[in-house]
């Protein structure tokens, strides 16, 4: 089974999983973040503490949750309370990482999951913030997981749902957002990005194996900072693939 070539989604999950820091609290949203968290817990970060917004903390992730409130999100958990408990823990500074998605992202890591087009007469109505805005506001570090396409990596999102660095240095603090918080990485289907510490604009960090820097630039709708040295992400190991395919998502819901 591990002979089958890996997909870009599988690679993206592996790269995201490696970003989990062991022994930290992680706010996990629906979908890819759940797979990444499960993979991290089985590999490099066995002591992460998953937090799901509807109340589950410290679950043992034996089976892939399909929803942020279902029983798998507090399976053998340490506490199973309500949304106020987790959101307020984040607001108090107890949640280290937040893993997020969105339809659009801009150079400052602001995310849109509300509308494409004008808010009151949208071209496309998206699901809405959900917990995204709260996670982006309150977690110490957020990591976005995105399909890498020009229409998604845009100079200006149609609607800022989840705050990245807003308009740049000092903007989060000026708005009243917690000091020292903000986005630190984007994992896409093509590459891993971080943020330039001076300008707080998105910067290419490492491309996925087989992806060129040009390909990343072509698929990004704004000027991505390209440093002198761009790394290459490790491909999924056989073990990572086995875990993903056999243990984590055997039904192939996401991969």
């Amino acid at each position, binding site marked *: 089974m591990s002979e089958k070539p890996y997909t870009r989604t599988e690679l993206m999950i592996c790269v995201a999983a490696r970003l989990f820091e062991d022994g930290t609290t992680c706010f996990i949203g629906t979908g890819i973040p759940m797979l990444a968290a499960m993979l991290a817990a089985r590999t490099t970060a066995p002591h992460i503490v998953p937090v799901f917004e509807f109340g589950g903390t410290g679950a043992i992730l034996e089976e892939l949750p399909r929803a942020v409130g279902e029983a798998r999100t507090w399976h053998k958990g340490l506490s199973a309370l309500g*949304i106020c408990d987790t959101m307020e823990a984040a607001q108090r500074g107890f949640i280290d990482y937040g893993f997020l998605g969105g339809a659009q992202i801009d150079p400052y890591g602001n995310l849109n999951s509300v509308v494409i087009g004008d808010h009151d007469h949208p071209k496309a109505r998206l*699901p809405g913030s959900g917990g995204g805005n709260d996670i982006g506001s309150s977690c110490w570090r957020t990591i976005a997981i995105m399909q890498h396409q020009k229409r998604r990596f845009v100079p200006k999102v149609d609607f800022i749902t989840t705050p990245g660095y807003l308009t740049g240095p000092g903007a989060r603090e000026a708005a009243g957002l917690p000091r020292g918080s903000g986005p630190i990485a984007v994992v896409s289907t093509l590459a891993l990005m971080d943020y330039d510490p001076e300008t707080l604009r998105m910067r290419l960090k490492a491309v996925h194996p087989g992806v060129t820097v040009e390909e990343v630039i072509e698929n990004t709708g704004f000027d991505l900072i390209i440093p002198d040295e761009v790394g290459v992400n490790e491909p999924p190991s056989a073990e990572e693939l086995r875990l993903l395919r056999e243990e984590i998502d055997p039904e192939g819901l996401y991969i």
Partner: protein
Amino acid sequence: MEVVEILQSGQGELIQPFDMDEFREWNRTKKSRKLVDKVMSEQEAIEKFVYDGCYIGTELYGTVRCPMSLAREVVRQGKRNLRVCGQGVLELDLWLAAGLVKKLDITYIGLEVYGTSASLRRAVESGQVETCVEWSNGAITWRMKAAAMGIPFIPTRSMLGTDMITYSAAKVVKDPFTGTPVALLPALVLDVALIHVHRADKYGNCQIEGISGFAAEMARACKRLIVSAEEIVPTEEIRKYPDRTIIPYYLVDAVVHAPFGSHPGEMAYLYGRDEEGIKEWVEMSKTAEGAQAYLDKYVYGVKNHQEYLDLIGEERLQRCVERRERREA
């Protein structure tokens, strides 16, 4: 005179204005403190307490402890022009598909693992839903928490600096104690709330197993509360574990006995999701016609929750039971 600066006022409509003294008066005069038998059917409860144009909400995500039997009855009775606070999956999707929703305090309406909601897109992009006022999941819950506390607003650091504030009805002020900006969320008092629980007595004392989502907050933030319960238990059972009663009877207007009331969603420790059933909606709701066919079959085509369960069939329900979460060390 000392003042607090208002830095920004959201331009979104406060689609459910509130008056705390009026809410108090309601709670004084319309909510009996007496232990009165409130058991009734879905049909009776929805007829009695849900009305065209009311502001209504359901508790928890669409597939988890969701009051589906009540949500389907709302569709069956065709309540119109609903104003809804939306954090939902299946249940709000049904209402949107049935064309019942006029205004939304929206946080998230989608199908989670199965992606965006086509019903939401159709309803909003066509203009059938007139207004979407934006809130985060935290913010909408804190708005209910403010009402539950009997106070006019609650501060938060969520939504600051984003378009969320602009398209909400929140205000940003300088905190008078420390001088930093903070958002004030207006209280949200619902006309009607629907909550599904594990067990209730006939008076409405309710207990929940597993995560409680925002049940405690919503139950205290509404004028009418319809509870559906997997099991109706004697009050003696409640009195044995009063520390489990997160919704006391005096908050409750109707108690509906609804075994498998969350189907095709799950109920912790009782039954798991019916993946097949959820996928059926996901597939059919991609088109307006498909959604209509689903409603025809599962809502309009059955008279009540029992007929719905008969349609699903014992065997499929039993499979859900087998997939349930278990309490084990």
